[in-house]
């Protein structure tokens, strides 16, 4: 466990040394503040458009940070040949996978925490309603989703040769699930056999990341989600992340480390 934690700490340090997070955070803050300064029909109470823009930027930034950070972890270790001294510590390949996952996930969670604190301050001061419970649920569910994304990208990094191709494919898959995941069963029903069975199978196999996008509840003040549902969704994400990490380990343990 200490080995995994030590590996995770290195990844977290890497995140705050790199400029990705700072650039995305400043960009989100500047766009939100500029949009917030615009007056629409002399009504200072209008706030939902601002929450919507800010949350959209947070989601984009979180995906960029999660996929960007994770995609280069294992390929960078192999390219710089630092993987050899690392495995000679001795550290098992399973611990490398677990450490990289824990590091990337915690780093993304930390970045998300900063984003949500900013969001809470902006929406709370403008609206006069802090909605801490709703914001915490949105933050937690997004953290759970990022966990699945990190595990997925980690699997991609041991399958695909270049980090760029892994990042691109991961973006397409994740955005595809977020946009279409909820409707695949509806699409399947309109297809002839055997396409219907195929689409339905994909529908049941993919991790339903769209569940974790509860921005509408926050934007439109629709109250909190039941804690049981949050817990079940967290368990679902944990099962998928474990499954993907196990698959990563299966591929990685037999993979030659020389480029």
């Amino acid at each position, binding site marked *: 466990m200490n080995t995994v934690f030590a590996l995770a700490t290195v990844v977290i340090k890497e995140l705050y040394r790199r400029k990705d997070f700072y650039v995305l955070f400043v960009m989100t803050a500047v766009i939100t503040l500029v949009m917030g300064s*615009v007056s*629409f*029909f*002399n*009504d200072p*109470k*209008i*706030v*939902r*458009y601002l929450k919507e823009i800010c949350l959209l930027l947070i989601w984009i930034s979180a995906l960029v940070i999660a996929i960007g950070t994770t995609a280069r972890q294992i390929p960078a270790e192999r390219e710089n040949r630092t993987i050899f001294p690392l495995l000679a510590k001795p550290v098992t390949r399973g611990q490398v996978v677990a450490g990289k996952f824990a590091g990337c996930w915690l780093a993304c969670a930390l970045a998300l925490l900063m984003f949500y604190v900013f969001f809470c301050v902006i929406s709370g001061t403008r609206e006069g309603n802090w909605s801490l419970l709703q914001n915490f649920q949105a933050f937690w*569910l997004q953290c759970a989703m990022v966990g699945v994304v990190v595990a997925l990208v980690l699997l991609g990094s041991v399958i695909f040769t270049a980090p760029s191709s892994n990042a691109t494919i991961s973006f397409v898959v994740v955005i595809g699930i977020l946009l279409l995941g*909820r*409707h695949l*069963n*509806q*699409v399947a*029903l309109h297809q002839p056999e055997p396409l219907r069975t195929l689409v339905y199978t994909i*529908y*049941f196999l993919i991790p*339903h990341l*769209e*569940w*974790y*996008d*509860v921005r*509408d*509840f926050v*934007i*439109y003040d*629709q109250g909190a*989600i*039941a804690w049981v*549902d949050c817990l*079940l*969704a967290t368990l679902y994400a944990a099962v998928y992340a474990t499954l993907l990490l196990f698959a990563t380990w299966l591929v990685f343990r037999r993979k030659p480390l020389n480029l």
Partner: protein
Amino acid sequence: MRRIFHPILILILLLAATFSLATLVQPRAQGWDKRGKSGNVLTLLLGDSRRMFANHFFVKADVSFHSGYYPSIFDQAEKPKGSGHMTSEEGSPEAEEHERKMSFLGEPRDWVERFGRHFFITHHTHLENGNEREILPWLKLSAELDPQRIDTYVVASYWLRNRLGKVSEAEEFLRQGLRNNPNNYELLYEMGCLYNENYHDSSRARHIWELALRRWHEQEPAKKEPDLIDLDKITIHLARLEEHEGNWDRAIEYLEAAMKSSPNPDVLRQQIEELKAKQRDPKTAKESSRG
């Protein structure tokens, strides 16, 4: 060796060159601005694709009006058509039809869908208690991107003057619409409503509605499918105004015109009969006018 090109001389030369170029480019740059109808940066940058974005923002206003409960592209068949539901009164046939169309979710097909419904909004509501203001930024953006989209001005004006008490803002926005779309009868009709209902200036409202009616007759009859709904609205409003002012002949005239476009001509026929009765008996008419 003596330097021939002193840096200051080069700098002066470059300044002279930029000044000369500026005098050449400036008149042309003004010409570039004129190419875009509104002449703003968005028009220059996005070209005609801005209309697509404008449509997106108009739909965004509708999504906001429904607090996020809205059919996706996969539920397109049930998607609300037009913007009538955004300005319809509760209990009206239009509102009831909209309510029926918005129950598009149905029963969940599987456990994934059943559980997934805990994480998105599944009940149909409309903004109320002043929260209608939240749709305004999207409408403003939509109008900036596509100044020729009439719905945007009409819907924004309706909410501004009827629910948010911002009559002068509504008037200003309608005037912006009229500057971008001179002679548009829908905007003139809405402006007439604003003067009649909010400023209680019936004389000005009459002139604007009469202008709207003239514009309708100039633009619509030649079309394959003329906009009869708006003709009905304009003539009925003019008839009500004339009735209120005691001009029975004019009121009957407008109601007869409205009968040609109305979906309920029998109701109008009955109203014409009532007006004729009032006309025959001026005493009753005066009393009903006072009432």
